[in-house]
């Protein structure tokens, strides 16, 4: 073991240290950029003309597509909330992806579905559709019943049946704010450029007071794992994605909530069913399409206002499944679009975002894991005083802590932040502990994801143990 360690040599150790420094350093720079955006957003008025936007006939209509698989516990509540968003013209397209439970029955009962003769456009392929239904009580609810095919397949079926110029893809277990559609359409209407997709920050619903399908009071869960994720989501969304969007290189819009131009999405072939990273894949393909076909100036925007709340895993087992899937999906998407790497045709994406994701998010996890392992080895060998260990301590832990704190700071500045002072104190504490406890864990999980990818694992979406967040608190 000693021979191995000395064989690597100080050069490699330096390389590792530089890797961490560059990674965290770049992220700190991105955070500074993001800070400016978020702060400006905060200073602007709380009115912003959203109401007028929501009520105008010239604001585009939106199709909200909800793929649902075995969601009998909460589907009725979710769909009811979606039907009462503060937006004038929109439709809700629920796609029952061959559920084996009472999802379809719940929908039929609660919304009085009757068969609908509307023909799908037929431009996107999906698993066979068993039936299309409309609600008697709600004229803007459409339910597509189809055979099981996975989330991407269900979204494609939904896209085929949707009729409005924009669509929102959401997960069946999210809670949308009432003004979510107003806020997500705002960049489309008020940018000087053509906005083809919009993403938003996903907030953690665990521990919040949820009543009648709305988050009434923001609260913090007691679970340490959840709090780590709260800090992580703030960092990832507010520091990372805000900045990337500012550079017009945003590659990921979360599948939990995102808005896209429908015609464009259909033109690029909808969602790919053979990858678990279908949300990122669509965005990357949209970028590619716009640039390759020289379709002019465009933007993929990010809204730092909270519009969507979701339940995050509160057990390591479920977290592991999720992170392995995310890592695998990322690598699948990156490999499918290799041609973008350092290709000036793709502008900021080819020259910065793609290499960044490939090096730091995709494969860099190997270096990170090795760094942590090496540090642990030094520590066990009896001494954190070695140069490497000291440098690692600072490069990885301290820089990482600074980054996590940036995330918490931006979280503080955004609407619906955690109200109590002790919440902030807890988040600061967890931001510090993040790099000691949580980052190594996610690195290990992502490593497993890389292994899954290399091994060629296929298939699906594991089962998320839903605690019936909506249902439980409504009763």
């Amino acid at each position, binding site marked *: 073991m000693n021979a191995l360690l000395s064989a690597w040599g100080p050069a490699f150790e330096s390389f590792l240290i530089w890797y961490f420094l560059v990674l965290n350093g770049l992220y700190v720079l991105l955070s500074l950029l993001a800070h400016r955006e978020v702060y400006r957003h905060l200073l602007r008025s709380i009115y912003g003309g959203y109401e007028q936007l929501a009520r105008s*006939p010239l604001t585009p209509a939106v199709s909200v597509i909800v793929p649902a698989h075995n969601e009998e516990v909460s589907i009725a509540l979710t769909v*009811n909330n979606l039907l*009462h968003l*503060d937006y*004038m013209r929109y439709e809700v397209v629920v796609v029952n992806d061959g559920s084996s439970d009472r999802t379809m029955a719940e929908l039929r009962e609660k919304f009085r579905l009757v068969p609908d003769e509307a023909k799908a456009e037929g431009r996107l392929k999906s698993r066979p559709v068993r039936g299309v239904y409309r609600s008697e009580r709600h004229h803007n609810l459409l339910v597509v019943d189809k055979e099981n095919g996975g989330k991407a397949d269900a979204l494609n079926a939904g896209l085929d049946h949707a009729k409005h110029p924009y669509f929102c893809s959401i997960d069946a277990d999210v809670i949308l704010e009432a003004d979510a559609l107003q806020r997500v359409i705002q960049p489309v209407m008020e940018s000087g450029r053509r906005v083809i997709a919009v993403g938003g920050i996903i907030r953690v619903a665990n521990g919040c007071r949820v009543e*009648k399908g709305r988050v009434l009071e923001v609260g913090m869960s007691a679970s340490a794992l959840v709090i780590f994720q709260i800090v992580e989501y703030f960092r990832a969304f507010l520091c990372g994605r805000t900045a990337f969007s500012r550079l017009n290189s945003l590659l990921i819009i979360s599948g939990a909530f995102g808005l896209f131009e429908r015609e464009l999405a259909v033109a690029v072939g909808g969602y790919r069913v053979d990858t678990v990273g279908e949300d990122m894949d669509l965005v990357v393909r949209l970028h590619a399409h716009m640039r390759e076909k020289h379709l002019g100036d465009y933007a993929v925007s990010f809204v730092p206002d909270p519009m969507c709340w979701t339940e995050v895993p509160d057990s390591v087992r479920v977290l592991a499944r999720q992170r392995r899937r995310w890592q695998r999906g990322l690598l699948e998407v990156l490999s499918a679009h290799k041609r973008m790497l350092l290709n000036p045709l793709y502008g900021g994406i080819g020259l910065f975002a793609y290499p960044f994701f490939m090096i730091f998010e995709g494969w860099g996890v190997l270096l990170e894991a090795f760094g942590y392992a090496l540090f642990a080895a030094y520590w066990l060998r009896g001494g954190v005083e070695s140069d490497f260990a000291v440098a690692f301590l600072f490069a990885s832990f301290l820089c990482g802590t600074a980054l996590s704190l940036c995330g918490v700071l931006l979280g503080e500045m955004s609407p619906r932040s955690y109200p109590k002072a002790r919440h902030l104190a807890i988040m600061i504490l967890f931001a510090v502990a993040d790099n000691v406890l949580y980052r190594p864990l996610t690195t290990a999980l992502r490593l497993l994801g890389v292994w899954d990818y290399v091994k060629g694992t296929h298939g699906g979406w594991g089962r998320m143990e839903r605690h019936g967040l909506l249902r439980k608190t409504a009763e």
Partner: protein
Amino acid sequence: MDAAKRIVLIFEDNASIRELLTFFFQRRGFAVVFAEDGTDAVALARERKPDLIVMDLIMPGKDGVEAVGDLRREGDKTPVIMLTSKNYAADRERALATGANAYLLKPFNPLELDRTLASLLPPG
């Protein structure tokens, strides 16, 4: 509470509008009860027996049109005024078709509301 006071039931989720309507109706001698969405419209109407109901078209949970529909299906004949945005004629028609007696445009004009009240309710 003065037994002769008429009761108005206000369904409105925007706190400012609710407040303005409360002032308006209190000035005219009504007792005001309010709710934030139409989910319990039928139950509330049965419990409080209002003389008038004012409802916003857009509310979380259950919006104005659905709530009015519920009430009318239960046989409730209480006069209903629907608050609607000025931009969508279709919504106004839908409100009236489902059973609202009159609509009121937002931003609301107390003079308009007075006129509507006069036409809907016997002088009190």
